[in-house]
């Protein structure tokens, strides 16, 4: 199905009352968790996973994507008004945004980030709609060997290329791979790494791991580092963008969107890099008379560009997820496990076998963007109130939901013991700067990679050279090696000079 008729079908379905309601609920929840420090979209979607037992796949994914997009909008509000970024993509927004807020320009900062998010989200969703079918066409010729190599590339980029240390990123990834191995081996029926614990035969649940990493570990780490003191929420003031603000924001929005989307699509994932690049680009390109505002009173370009890049990259992440079944962020990985619980295999077949689901989802993303801009600008006062939820009760509530989300899986205290034990591990991971997202990605992608590996070797009758003699696979593996070794070689060459 081509993009235009797909979108026509999608919009036809998306405007049903039920689907609009799911989108609105998702946007609302997403903005709320984006605003609240300490919870993000990955945790929220993990806790909502039980919904897949009762709700249709379309409804559930509209809800999840609403949460995903909404959290991006909400995160910027926290960055600007609290100067504490809620998630990694908003770190850059806090640089200039919080300075603008301190100088009484919180309103324009919030407005430019919300409208910029809308512009970029729409550009990004158009990208999904038109790029998706192209990639699918190309991906249909990939065999298990190419898939395995593609997953290796994905592992390398999410763990070794992004983040502060390749060594610690890889360690996180391998921890995730290890967790993914626990349970019955699907091909031979043998129990693996269960240590004789019956509860582990079904494997470690992804909800449990996500909750341990993103809720329990976070709470423990915050408690460890806790010191008494009050956080200050800055005043919002007037929300309107003046003509001048609008003029200064327009090109940064466009450049940010153009920069962010390709980064999201590449199996490199991550929103840190495009937001940072956008920030540096805007600082370079700003008109000389405004240059002094960067780092002093806060420049609106430094909010508009990165915030657009952030949202476009987030939309881009959905492209490899929907077309190849490759998750490049923790949130996408958890959405992938939701597909699995419906018995749907994300990948090139998704666009043909589940065309209605895919196009309804894409159409709903457009609608969600409109809803989010409405939710975030006129209703900003509501989110400011949510920001003022005191920390003690906030973490109390987060742990209540963490407990019920885990205990609800099997009603077993054993699961809670594993949850808290992993939570302690996650606390130390935070302390020693091990990233947590590769754990989730490794855990979900690992078993898929193993399956692809075994299929490829069955086809080649045990010949391991199949991965380098098939040109597609060899090319992808070469890219992976380049991604791993390239930066180091570059650094070595640069230091010799």
């Amino acid at each position, binding site marked *: 199905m081509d993009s235009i008729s797909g979108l026509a079908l999608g919009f036809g379905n998306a405007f049903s009352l039920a689907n609009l309601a799911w989108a609105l609920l998702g946007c609302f929840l997403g903005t709320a968790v984006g605003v609240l420090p300490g919870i993000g979209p990955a945790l929220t979607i993990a806790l*909502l996973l*039980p*919904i897949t*037992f*009762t709700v249709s796949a379309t409804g559930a994914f509209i809800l999840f994507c609403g949460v995903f997009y909404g959290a991006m909008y909400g995160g910027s509000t926290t960055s600007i008004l609290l100067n504490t970024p809620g998630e990694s993509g908003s770190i850059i927004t806090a640089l200039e945004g919080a300075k603008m807020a301190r100088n009484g320009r919180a309103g324009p900062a919030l407005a430019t980030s919300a409208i910029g998010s809308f512009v970029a989200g729409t550009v990004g969703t158009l990208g999904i709609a038109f790029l998706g079918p192209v990639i699918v066409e190309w991906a249909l010729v990939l065999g298990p060997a190419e898939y395995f190599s593609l997953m290796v590339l994905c592992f390398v980029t999410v763990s070794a290329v992004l983040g502060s240390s390749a*060594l*610690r990123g*890889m*360690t996180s990834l*391998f*921890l995730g*791979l*290890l967790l993914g*191995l626990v349970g019955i*081996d699907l*091909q*031979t*029926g*043998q*129990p*693996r*790494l269960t*240590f004789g614990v019956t509860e582990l035969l079904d494997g470690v649940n992804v909800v449990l791991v996500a909750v341990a990493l993103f809720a*329990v570990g976070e*709470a423990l780490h915050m*408690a*460890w*580092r*806790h*010191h*008494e003191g009050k956080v200050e929420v800055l005043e919002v003031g007037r929300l309107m963008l003046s003509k001048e603000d609008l003029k200064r924001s327009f090109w940064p929005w466009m450049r940010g969107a153009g920069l962010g989307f390709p980064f999201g699509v590449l199996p490199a994932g991550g929103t840190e890099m495009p937001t940072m690049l956008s920030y540096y680009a805007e600082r370079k390109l700003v008109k000389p008379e405004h240059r002094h505002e960067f780092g002093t009173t806060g420049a609106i370009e430094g909010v508009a560009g990165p915030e657009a890049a952030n949202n476009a990259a987030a939309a881009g992440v959905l492209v490899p997820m929907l077309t190849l079944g490759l998750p490049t962020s923790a949130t996408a990985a958890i959405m992938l496990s939701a597909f699995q619980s419906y018995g749907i295999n994300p990948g090139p077949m998704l666009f043909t076998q589940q065309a209605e689901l895919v196009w309804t989802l894409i159409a709903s993303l457009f609608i969600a963007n409109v809803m989010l801009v409405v939710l975030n600008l006129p209703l900003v006062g509501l989110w400011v109130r949510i920001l003022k939820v*005191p*920390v*003690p*009760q906030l*973490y*109390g*509530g987060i*742990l*209540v*939901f963490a*407990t*019920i*989300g885990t*205990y*609800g899986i099997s*009603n077993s*205290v054993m699961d809670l*013991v594993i949850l808290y034990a992993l*939570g302690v591990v996650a606390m*130390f991971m935070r*302390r*020693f*700067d091990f990233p947590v997202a590769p754990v989730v990605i490794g855990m979900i992608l690992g078993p898929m990679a193993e399956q692809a*590996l*075994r299929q490829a*070797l*069955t086809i080649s*009758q*045990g010949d391991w050279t199949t991965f380098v003699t098939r040109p597609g696979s060899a090319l992808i593996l070469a890219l992976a090696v380049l991604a791993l070794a390239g930066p180091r070689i570059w650094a070595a060459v640069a230091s010799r000079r």
Partner: protein
Amino acid sequence: MTRRGADAADLAAGVFVLLLGGVAVWAAGVIPTTPLYAQVGPKAVPYVVGGGLAGLGVLLVAAALRGGWSADLPEVAEAGPPNPRALGWLGGGLVMNLLLIGPLGFSLSAAAQFVCTARAFGSTTPGRDAAIALAVSLAAFFLFVEALGVNIGAGVLEAAILRAIGREVI
């Protein structure tokens, strides 16, 4: 970078990863082999992952012996001293939840955990926290049971409420 001695904390983290890798290799070794024909048996990937983890552990230990990495992290350098009081209250709340959730059911147990958590983060109003905690945990219970269709099983408090509103106890 100036030369530094080994960083004890980082060394412990590296040794932990190394041990975890060792355990994983051992656990891969005891996976029962199968007479079923397979090009790649059930042991191969666990060996690779366990071995990889152990190898990364060795590299982390080496990095720690060269001075470690966490001293360079601004978050660690700027952080105040650890807060054993807060960590104690939070950990105590988690353990209490483990002990109480069986006999008392979710809502009461989670409410107790809420109060401990709030106390950990500096709340000085346990009575008010308890009231909020009960409201939050009951709301979470009915949200999961009614809206998400998750069967958690009614505890003491939930059963009493269900009986009071004339519903069947799940």
